[in-house]
């Protein structure tokens, strides 16, 4: 497991701002998801949603190392990736509620948020469904020659899908600038990953010629460090990488997955929340080196909380698309 080099000594104001930015972004994701759960509980949201709470450090650690014109692809559990890449919460909430003001005019919903302005090629409701798309974006990036990279986020469950290996092989052969990020949160729906994945996950990249590493996915600094290295490699034309981030989802597979004890214990959940919380880990580090105090972080949380409340209200008040919009956008 890679550990971030301790850069305390050389920490500049710039770096502090960067880490506070990460703290803010992780907070945004956390609060956004809490609102989503609230919308579900209040029966204001159509369908279901898969929350990213507990995994914030992965999306943020990686996306903070990306340029705006870099690409990402995401999953059914995609809100965190979208926010980390720069999407704005109001239009995301609107999309979740199926409103015209949403990122996809309400046509996509929670599992299909996409946004060309932030290089977000789209969440995807097919497990491993975006592996080809991300690799294709890297193919274009290589042809365009502007140093863009693509990040393909997926859960460890996607390692069950053969297409992942097909595209890793292609990316390695063609030295495409793509980083495959496996978020190993231990469960694929209601089954522990050890029951569905044989062998050592990390070797699954190397076997296809893709350099691989794993990292503590709860430590945003560690994630950021290794991501920065892999992204630099990709930009330099040195090809793809595979990164396994060890993490955990605090809540259910989706908002309706309340009784989880048949597949994992409350104690396990509690342990992650207490000992391995990504917000707390970053906060503690900031405190311990005197880079921020409780007040500063409280201020961030307050601000983000207000932002979320405004965003939710915007979405609730927004109108649905007119029914005659249904047949638009089928063909370009």
């Amino acid at each position, binding site marked *: 497991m890679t550990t971030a080099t301790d850069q305390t000594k050389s920490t500049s104001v710039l770096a502090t701002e960067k880490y506070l930015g990460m703290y803010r972004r992780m907070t945004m994701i956390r609060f956004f998801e809490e609102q989503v759960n609230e919308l579900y509980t209040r029966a204001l949201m159509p369908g*279901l949603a898969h929350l990213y709470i507990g995994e914030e450090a992965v999306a943020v650690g990686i996306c903070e190392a990306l340029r705006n014109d870099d690409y990402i692809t995401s999953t059914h559990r995609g809100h965190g990736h979208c926010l980390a890449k720069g999407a704005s919460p109001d239009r995301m909430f609107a999309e979740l509620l199926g409103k015209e003001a949403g990122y996809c005019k309400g046509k996509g919903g929670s599992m299909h948020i996409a946004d060309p302005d932030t290089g977000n090629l789209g969440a995807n409701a097919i497990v491993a469904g975006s592996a080809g798309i991300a690799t294709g974006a890297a193919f274009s990036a290589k042809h365009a020659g502007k140093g863009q990279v693509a990040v393909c986020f997926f859960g460890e469950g996607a390692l069950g899908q053969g297409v992942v290996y097909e595209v890793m092989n292609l990316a390695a052969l063609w030295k495409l600038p793509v980083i495959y990020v496996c978020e190993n949160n231990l469960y694929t729906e209601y089954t522990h990953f050890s029951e569905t994945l044989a062998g050592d996950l990390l070797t699954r990249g190397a076997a296809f010629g893709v350099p691989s590493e794993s990292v503590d996915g709860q430590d945003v600094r560690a994630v950021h460090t290794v991501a920065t290295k892999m992204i630099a490699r990709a930009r330099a034309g040195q090809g793809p990488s595979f990164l396994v981030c060890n993490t955990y989802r605090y809540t259910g597979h989706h908002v309706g997955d309340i009784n989880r004890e048949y597949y994992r214990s409350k104690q396990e959940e509690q342990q992650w929340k207490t000992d391995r919380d990504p917000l707390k880990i970053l906060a503690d580090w900031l405190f311990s080196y005197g880079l921020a105090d409780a007040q500063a972080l409280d201020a961030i949380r307050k601000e983000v909380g207000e932002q979320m409340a405004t965003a939710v209200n915007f979405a609730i008040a927004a109108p649905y698309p007119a029914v005659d919009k*249904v047949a638009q956008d089928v063909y370009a």
Partner: protein
Amino acid sequence: MPETAQRELTFAQAVNEALAEEMRRDARVCILGEDVAEAGTPFKVLSGLVQEFGVSRVIDTPISEAGFTGVGVGAAMTGMRPVIDIMFGDFLTLTMDQMVNQAAKVHYMSGGKWKVPMVLRTTLGASRRSAAQHSQSLHAWFSHVPGLKVVMPSTPYDAKGLLKSAIRDENPVVFFEDKMMYKLKGPVPAEDYTIPFGVADIKREGDDITLVATSSMVQVALEAAVLLESIGISAEVIDPRTMWPLDEKTLIASVQKTSRAIVIDEGYERYGITAEISSVIAEGAFFDLEAPVKRMGAMHVPIPFSPPLEDATVPTGQTLFAAAKKLCGKN
């Protein structure tokens, strides 16, 4: 349906019971799929089976639809009778090679020597706010492929009887369950019974118009029939129950009687199930038809997430009622 059938089950319970009974009867029957064991699938349709039959017969798989469907094909060839669970019908895209190039063709290509007695159970249907990749009804693809049989139950009674036939069939059978019907209740006998393939069921008799409906559209058609009755139109509702083999005779005979027909299905209307069935009727009842056969299927758009948009894409009792009224010349 036998008169004795007093007991009511949900559609999901009927499926569950069919599986349990067949697994008791035949040790070769096993289930493979994602989260089928402890979780009993996200729809809870398989709850309790792993407790009775154990993890060697109710088997959680990785997210490898192609892989475990392929394992099903090989297992079926060599003595097992696997029931493959594909959670959402949208994921069938991943199984096409195994089902179409392998399962469907093994018997023929081997000159009749190998058999593939497997069942692939999956879901269809929109209107759950699940968006474009979790709402498709792709049964037309399989119905197009020789070597496969395609089953679409519309009631708990049919679900149990047809699923038992599917498991006992010597061929690969694709079995579609509408997610929206899992909670639908209906009479289901406790005793063992099977429903043969290729026999359409007249769900309601009528004289003025034939509504041919599949899967949950049967419920929609029955709803429309009630509305039609109120304006003096007597609708016959026919459920083919299996797309292949297809009971052409019953469909044609009904339209010969009524002289009008609407075919209604939840798959995309274009190049879908309704095209085949309407062609069969238009040809077979050519000299009896007083109006063109009308088709109603899903709108030719990816299923949208937004509730008002999604609701506009699939036929409803109201839209069917309106179409039937018009076809019968009552405007």
